[in-house]
């Protein structure tokens, strides 16, 4: 299995204030990996570095064997990285259907690519709302749309930043179910979330960061076996 995303000893800062000191993380093709850590430890910042929004002050990031640090966000996206961002970031002035049409591409060369119809079949609520504007949706619908929008680019790597945050339990279940079926069809995923037990069931391996540094890495079995890690690093 080949490595799709390889982050090595990355450091980065917002202006003067350094947030990432030493982050390393590798994800193989078809794997599901997580990035864990308490609030404000640098998870979202790591994602922003991958997506090209903040420059690295040290280390490197490779995607599919090519270095991507220094590329513009749009170039990185075109290589096949799609983001379901923190806060969903739905466009208030685009309809549901437009969200799913505007950025459609087949960046992974998927033989059965994600289309509007396929997204609608996975999230039937969205189909009923096809012509509603983004700002007319409920939080759960916005989250489904954010996932659907990322999927229509048929990414090689799907990144989800707190995709279940602030959702009702039933909707959260729907999202977990969706991620499990994505995994089943071989989608490579990097996920950030708070529900450690769910992530253990979903993912292959985990990286925990604290104050911008990697402090633990291991498989789901290893994380499941030692709940001391949860208490020490995640506060749960």
């Amino acid at each position: 299995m080949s490595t799709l995303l390889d982050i090595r000893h990355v450091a980065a800062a917002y202006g003067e204030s350094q947030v990432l000191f030493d982050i390393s993380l590798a994800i193989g093709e078809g794997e599901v990996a997580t990035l864990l850590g308490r609030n404000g430890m640098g998870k979202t910042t790591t994602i922003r570095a991958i997506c090209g929004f903040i420059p690295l002050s040290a280390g490197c990031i490779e995607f599919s064997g090519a270095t991507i640090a220094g590329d513009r966000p749009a170039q990185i996206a075109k290589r096949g990285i799609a983001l379901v961002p923190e806060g969903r970031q739905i466009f208030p002035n685009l309809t549901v259907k437009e969200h799913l049409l505007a950025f459609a591409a087949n960046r992974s060369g998927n033989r059965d690519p994600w289309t509007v119809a396929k997204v609608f079949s996975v999230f039937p609520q969205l189909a009923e709302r096809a012509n509603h504007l983004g700002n007319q949706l409920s939080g759960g619908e916005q989250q489904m749309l954010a996932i659907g929008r990322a999927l229509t680019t048929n990414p090689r790597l799907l990144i989800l930043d707190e995709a279940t945050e602030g959702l009702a339990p039933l909707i959260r279940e729907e999202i977990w179910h969706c991620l499990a079926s994505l995994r089943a069809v071989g989608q490579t995923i990097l996920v950030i979330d708070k529900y450690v037990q769910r992530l253990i069931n979903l993912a292959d391996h985990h990286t925990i960061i604290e104050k911008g540094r990697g402090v633990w890495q291991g498989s789901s079995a290893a994380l499941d076996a030692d709940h001391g890690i949860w208490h020490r690093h995640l506060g749960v």
Partner: protein
Amino acid sequence: MTQLVIEQALNGLQFGLMLFLLAAGLTLVFGIMDMINLSHGSLYMGGAYLGAAATHASGSFLIGMLTSMAGMAVIGVLLEITLLRKLYQRDHLVQVLATFALILIANEVVRMLWGSKPLMLNPPANLAGPVELLGFSYPAYRLLIIAVGITVAGLLYLLVTRTRTGMWVRAGASNREMAEVLGINVRRLFTGVFALGAALCALAGILLGPLLAVQVGMGESILILSFVVIVIGGIGSIRGALIGSLLVGSVDTLGRALLPTLLRSVTAPEIARQLGPAIASILIYLLMAGILFWRPQGLFPARG
């Protein structure tokens, strides 16, 4: 009286459509790049001068119009790539100061090239006279402006609301980072938007040339009206720009034409004569204040 109202309503529509040609570009520049571009009015002035010069040289209004649109699109792209692009990351005060300097430079350049006397620009000869319309006569040339305005506004509306490019523009206007991370090169998209905006400014400039004087400083007054329009409509929204333009165009035109008469029927003629023009000239600002009081983000906010 009815005839006056209809005539002024048509004038208001015509002026509103021309305002839309300017406001469309302005609102997208402001919405996508968060950039206040005061020199937008200079593109309008440049378009009028270039159009007048090309019309005189070629003897054809149509050729003048197309030359001016193409010329200003090129100038707009050069301006964007060499200068304005460097201002996007700066704060609004820097943008205002730098683009105000551009206004002064543009006015000086025009004065050097064409002198300080206003240029004459005649409407096409076959449209110079009036036509009969609903029992009264109305200038044919103004009807042409209305027709061109409606056509261009319609095409622009379709472009923004019905095409993928339009979706990207709207997405970029409401959340630039998110559009980028989905693979849209917002910078390149924006250069295209800027070129189109400049061409529309030029179109408004040459169409209004025969009605208003082609002169140095013509861009400033219309620039202020355009800002009023985009604030009313909601910054970054094309639909807002269209509705705002039609509102401002008709309120301004009808107010100036009818308010003194209306006031005369309720107050003494002396007071009406003084108060009428004074109120008429601030009417659109009252409109803006009223709309902002009711909807602080404008009628169609593009941002969430």
